């Protein structure tokens, strides 16, 4: 269901909720057709499709017929969909043509009588006409991101919405206000927002616009609206069971399940490594202190032994850095992809439901047609359209997700390798400088005994 913002400029009213301006144009019929957008970043692109039954393609060309269910329009759309796929793969190549940049940073703690919470600065830079100003800077808290995601999920059910970091943390176990936790969460929120902003359809969603620009997110109002619409969507799709998921989606589902398993395994391995490294660190520190202790009872050997103790201590520091890096970078991304997989599986389910509804209605209609000689109702054709659109969106998002996943993991694993290389290099240089110190020491002492 699209709650579309009206095209063209709309003066921003600081006190009115952007949604309120659109209520009148709200379409009573759940309509998913407007979501078939081409990622065309030219300035003539519009936000979500027009409120009524009007479907508009993002390049500004309206479809010929008013009814989206006609065969020719369907054909047009299918043809465009092929282009759509080709274009989405170019997403990462076209960063020069991006016109929406978002960042999440600068966490700050807010203490009030009722609660304590963290807000983050959300900065936006854009040349899109949907935005009144080229720059925005405001503060948002996790709740606001959660709101945004919910709205996106409900308003764009055919699309894969990126995951948010975990909402709930056990109060006793994790410190919600620790630097580490806040830092990790902020990076995940930044990733989330960037992914939404980079998505050819989601980035034009008016809720995103509101999130980025409105001083005050009137969430309760939106929520009420949402439930009404959300319900109707559920009612529409409910009650139909899919007989057979087409093989291409089965493959996707299987992939997701297996990949999920692998992610879980990697998470466990990473945690095990961290545990072993921590225990190693404990023993290594003790080991270093024994050298320092020994140095105390010697005289000629004091400096060499202290040197070794110092070296061991440096290696401990390097190991600490390595462990910290791993836990801050590797684990969050693994967990994020687990959440991503969950989202994707949900989208697959919704797609199945949509197809089930279509097939169900079609069956009923065919039977009726045979009996009563009535033509296939518009309802069924709308369902068919929905399914087609859903499939197209899903496939496009799947490709985009695969591409992102490849990039993300390549970067993540490379970074992990880099951290390990860094660790060994630090240790190596510490030992190398010790060797030259020890050898100098040795030379000094040989000279002394020779001189006597």
């Amino acid at each position, binding site marked *: 269901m699209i709650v579309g913002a009206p095209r063209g400029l709309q003066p921003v009213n600081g006190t009115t909720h952007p949604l309120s301006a659109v209520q009148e144009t709200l379409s009573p019929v759940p309509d998913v057709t407007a979501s078939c957008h081409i990622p065309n970043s030219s300035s003539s692109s519009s936000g979500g499709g027009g409120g009524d039954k009007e479907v508009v393609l993002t390049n500004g060309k309206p479809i010929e017929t008013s009814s989206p269910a006609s065969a020719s329009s369907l054909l047009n759309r299918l043809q465009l969909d092929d282009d759509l796929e080709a274009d989405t793969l170019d997403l990462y190549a076209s960063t020069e043509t991006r016109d929406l940049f978002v960042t999440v940073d600068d966490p700050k703690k807010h203490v009030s009588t009722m609660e304590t919470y963290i807000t983050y600065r959300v900065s936006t830079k854009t040349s899109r006409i949907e935005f009144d100003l080229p720059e925005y800077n405001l503060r948002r808290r996790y709740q606001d991101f959660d709101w945004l995601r919910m709205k996106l999920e409900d308003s764009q059910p055919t699309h894969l919405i990126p995951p948010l970091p975990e909402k709930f943390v056990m109060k006793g176990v994790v410190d919600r206000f620790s630097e580490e936790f806040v830092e990790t969460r902020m990076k995940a929120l930044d990733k989330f927002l960037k992914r939404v902003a980079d998505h050819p359809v989601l980035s034009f969603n008016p809720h995103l616009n509101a999130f980025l620009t409105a001083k005050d997110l009137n969430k309760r109002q939106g929520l009420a609206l949402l439930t009404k619409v959300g319900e109707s969507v559920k009612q529409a799709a409910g009650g139909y069971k899919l007989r057979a998921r087409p093989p291409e989606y089965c493959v996707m589902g299987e992939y997701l399940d297996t990949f999920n398993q692998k992610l879980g395994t990697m998470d466990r391995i990473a945690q095990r490594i961290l545990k072993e490294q921590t225990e*190693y660190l404990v023993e290594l520190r*003790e080991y270093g202190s024994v050298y320092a202790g020994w140095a105390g009872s010697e005289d000629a050997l004091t400096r*060499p032994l202290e040197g*070794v103790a110092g070296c061991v201590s440096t290696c401990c520091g390097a190991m600490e850095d390595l462990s910290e890096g791993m836990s801050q970078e590797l684990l969050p991304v693994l967990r994020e992809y687990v959440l991503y997989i969950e989202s994707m599986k949900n989208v697959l389910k919704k797609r199945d439901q949509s197809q089930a509804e279509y097939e169900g209605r079609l069956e009923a209609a065919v039977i009726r047609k045979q009996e009563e000689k009535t033509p296939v109702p518009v309802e069924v054709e709308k369902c068919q359209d929905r399914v087609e659109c859903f499939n197209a969106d899903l496939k496009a998002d799947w490709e985009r997700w695969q591409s992102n996943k490849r990039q993300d993991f390549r970067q993540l694993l490379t970074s992990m390798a*880099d951290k390990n290389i860094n660790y060994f290099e630090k*240790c*190596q240089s510490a030992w190398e400088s010790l060797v030259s110190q020890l050898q100098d020491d040795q030379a000094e002492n040989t000279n002394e005994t020779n001189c006597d």
Partner: protein
Amino acid sequence: MILLASSIPTALGSVKLTAVSTEQNNGWNHLTSLYISTNLSSRLEVSVAETEKRNGKNAMNMQETFTVYLVETRPVEPLADGRQLAPDSLWRRYSEFEILRSYLLVTYPAVVVSPLPEKRAEFVWHKLSADNMDPDFVERRRVGLENFLQRVTSHPVLSHDSLLYQFLTEVSATSSRPGSHDELMKADSRLRALSATFRVRNPDRRFVEMKHYSDELQSHTSQLLRARARVADRLYGVYKVHGNYGRVFSEWSVLEKQMGDGLQSAGHHMDAYAASIDDILEEAEHYGDQLKEYLFYAEALRAVCRKHELSQYELELACQDLLSKKQQREELATGSVRTFSLKGMTSKLFGQEAPEQREARLHLLEEQIREGEQAVEERRSECQVHVGGAWVDVQRFRQQKDRDIREALIGYALMQISMCKKGVQMWSNTKECFLKM
């Protein structure tokens, strides 16, 4: 100023050595230079070349398997025509080395005698074998035995010992002299008695400090060896867990199209990384052996200090005995009883003894006093000889220890560098694979 007079038994008969110097250090060096030219090692090359397993009957007539070590000796100087003689060799087992060392300990109480490699594998980290028949253990023991022989044959005092020479060259050396074995056992029990506590009034302060130092050395080296074993265990764990990445990358690569190859080869590198720790830790054992040598050396140093205490104690006892005898004589001569004695009591109770009896007793006492004075002289001389010789050897030991430990630390650091380089290499290879994903 040091004045040293000692009689040293050598294979060539006794050699009397005297040295006078104005400074302690110079004196030691002077002595050493006198010794070096006659060290066994300067004439004879000694090595422990091979090992073999044997089967035989032990003391309780039971079958056992043991390892023998090939002791090779060859003159340092080549023949007149420049050729090298083939080495002489004989097989010895570990227990024979032990007998040799016990003999040296007893015979040269002023020397810090080099230790043997450990009898049983101690301070093992979990994967390292504690089995005496394990080939790696046997190899390390071979190296340790060679080190022991090279140390004793280059020692200024020990190298002249005839039994040592026989050990190196004659097959029947240790078994052909059962008598000497008994002597060894007697002397050994005397050494054991050293562990009993006794109070010494005036020990040489330097030896008190040395004993304290030997305790410290022992404590620090054993702490270090234990900590090292724990670190090795943990490091092993860290490396091995990375092997799991190998497996999961391999499984994951099956799912992927473009990422598959990169993941697969990265997985192989992770497997190699996990496997590399075995060799790394095995090589690191050499450092452990170097530390162990000095752990055992600490005990040898301590024994020298204890010997000083014992001889000082015996001297003090002899002095005390002499003093009491002299006091008795005085009392007898003057008739005054200053100290409580049974004789004094009985004479008080039952009357003085007859003059003849008194004369006889006085005569006996005089003799005892003469003997006592001689005993004190002997003990004093013994003590001084020991102190002189021991102090020289302790200095030698200290210098050797400083050199050896410094070298061991350098070796250790070089090993760490090599390990880091391997790590960098392996992760760089893995990174290459990731970049291809």
